């Protein structure tokens, strides 16, 4: 475990010493503050719109930070040749993958926490009330969503040659699942064979990332989700994360280290 935590610490240090997080956070703050200062048509639903936009920015920023951080981890180790002194220590390739995953996931968790604190401040200052449990559930579910995404991106970083192509492909896949994933079974019904079977297989095999999106509930101040459902969704996320990490290990364990 020493090696895994040591690797994770380096990833976290990398995140807070780079500019990515600060740029996205400042951008989110600026856009939210500018919109908060506007009072269009004296609409009393303006706080709802504000929360919706702020949450959307949080989702985009957290996704970009996670994908960008995870996609460069293993390629950078190879390109800078740090993978050689690292694997010359008593560290297995599986531990490298686990350390990188843990680092990216914890770092994205810290970033999420900062974003949600800001969201809480915005909401609290406008509505003078805060549904803390609902916020925590939304934060937890988004963190679980990021675990699947990070594991997927790490797998991509072993398969695709360049970090930029991996990041682009993963972002397209994640956005595709978020926007279309829930409708694939409906699409399948209207298809002729063999497309019906293919679409159904895709529907049942992709990770349904849209289940982790609790933005609507936060915006509308809906009652909190039952904890057993949160636990089941967390298990679902852990299973998919495990599958992607196992795939990463399978591909990485015999791969040549030099590019």
């Amino acid at each position, binding site marked *: 475990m*020493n*090696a895994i*935590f*040591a690797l994770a*610490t*380096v990833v976290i*240090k*990398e995140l807070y*010493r*780079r500019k990515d997080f600060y740029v996205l956070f400042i951008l989110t703050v600026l856009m939210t503050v500018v919109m908060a200062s506007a009072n269009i048509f004296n609409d009393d639903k303006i706080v709802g719109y504000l929360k919706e936009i702020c949450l959307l920015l949080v989702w985009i920023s957290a996704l970009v930070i996670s994908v960008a951080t995870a996609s460069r981890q293993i390629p950078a180790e190879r390109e*800078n*040749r*740090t993978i*050689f*002194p*690292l*694997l*010359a*220590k*008593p*560290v*297995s390739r599986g531990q490298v993958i686990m350390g990188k995953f843990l680092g990216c996931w914890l770092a994205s968790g810290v970033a999420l926490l900062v974003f949600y604190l800001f969201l809480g401040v915005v909401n609290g200052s406008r509505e003078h009330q805060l549904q803390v449990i609902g916020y925590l559930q939304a934060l937890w579910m988004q963190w679980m969503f990021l675990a699947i995404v990070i594991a997927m991106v790490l797998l991509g970083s072993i398969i695709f040659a360049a970090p930029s192509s991996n990041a682009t492909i993963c972002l397209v896949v994640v956005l595709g699942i978020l926007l279309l994933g829930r409708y694939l079974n409906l699409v399948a019904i209207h298809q002729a064979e063999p497309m019906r079977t293919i679409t159904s297989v895709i529907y049942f095999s992709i990770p349904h990332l849209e289940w982790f999106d609790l933005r609507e509930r936060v915006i509308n101040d809906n009652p909190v989700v039952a904890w057993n459902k949160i636990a089941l969704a967390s298990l679902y996320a852990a299973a998919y994360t495990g599958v992607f990490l196992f795939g990463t290990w399978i591909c990485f364990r015999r791969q*040549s*280290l030099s590019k």
Partner: protein
Amino acid sequence: MNQIVEIEQLCVEYRSRAIGQGTKLAVDRLDLSVHTGEVFGFLGPNGAGKTTTMNVLLGFVNATSGSAKLFGVDVREPIARQRIGYLPELTYYYKFLTAEELLRFYARIFGMKPAETERRIDELLKLVELEPARKRPIKSYSKGMQQRVGLAQALINNPDLLILDEPTSGLDPIGRMKVREIIQRLKNEGKTVFFSSHELGEVETVCDRVAILHQGKLKVAGRVSDLMEEYHANLEQIFLRIIGYQPVQP
């Protein structure tokens, strides 16, 4: 004398990326042993199989056949690497870390205790003369300083065996001299050093024994002084003769 590195009938075959090219034999039935406390020079022209052999010893590449052991343990076992230090050729360490953070990271991998880690970091930064720059990010280091921080990371666990892959490659004469001094000091401390280099003058100065590899095959191995006596030549001339170098006639 104890054998620290034992290589027997080692063969490494690479599958060529070009279609129809088949396989390439990078190392061909190599037998080699390195004993405790000696500085061993591993020589050969580019593509001779030196780095491939080192990669097998470090567990990066699997042997096609034959065996390789470190301290009597098969190199495929991660535990075989507990007592070694490795300095690769031209590595760009995590540029956002400082030298002491980098060393702390590697020390943690070895499971070293915090007090021991701090003591070792102080010792090593003094040894590689990076004390004044210890809190500066590695991205601000010169090439020579990067190579010296690399040497410090290779020594963090106080290894019994040091594997150095062209440690002076790309360094200026002062940088080369400093690395050579450090190797000499390690030798005096009784460490075993296994290193590859193209600097034959340097090898002649610091090595007890050498092996010359050419096209994956071991051509000669022995004590530097014995080889010089046998061939009546310096190491560079011996090297050129063994690899069959023919000077162009004017």
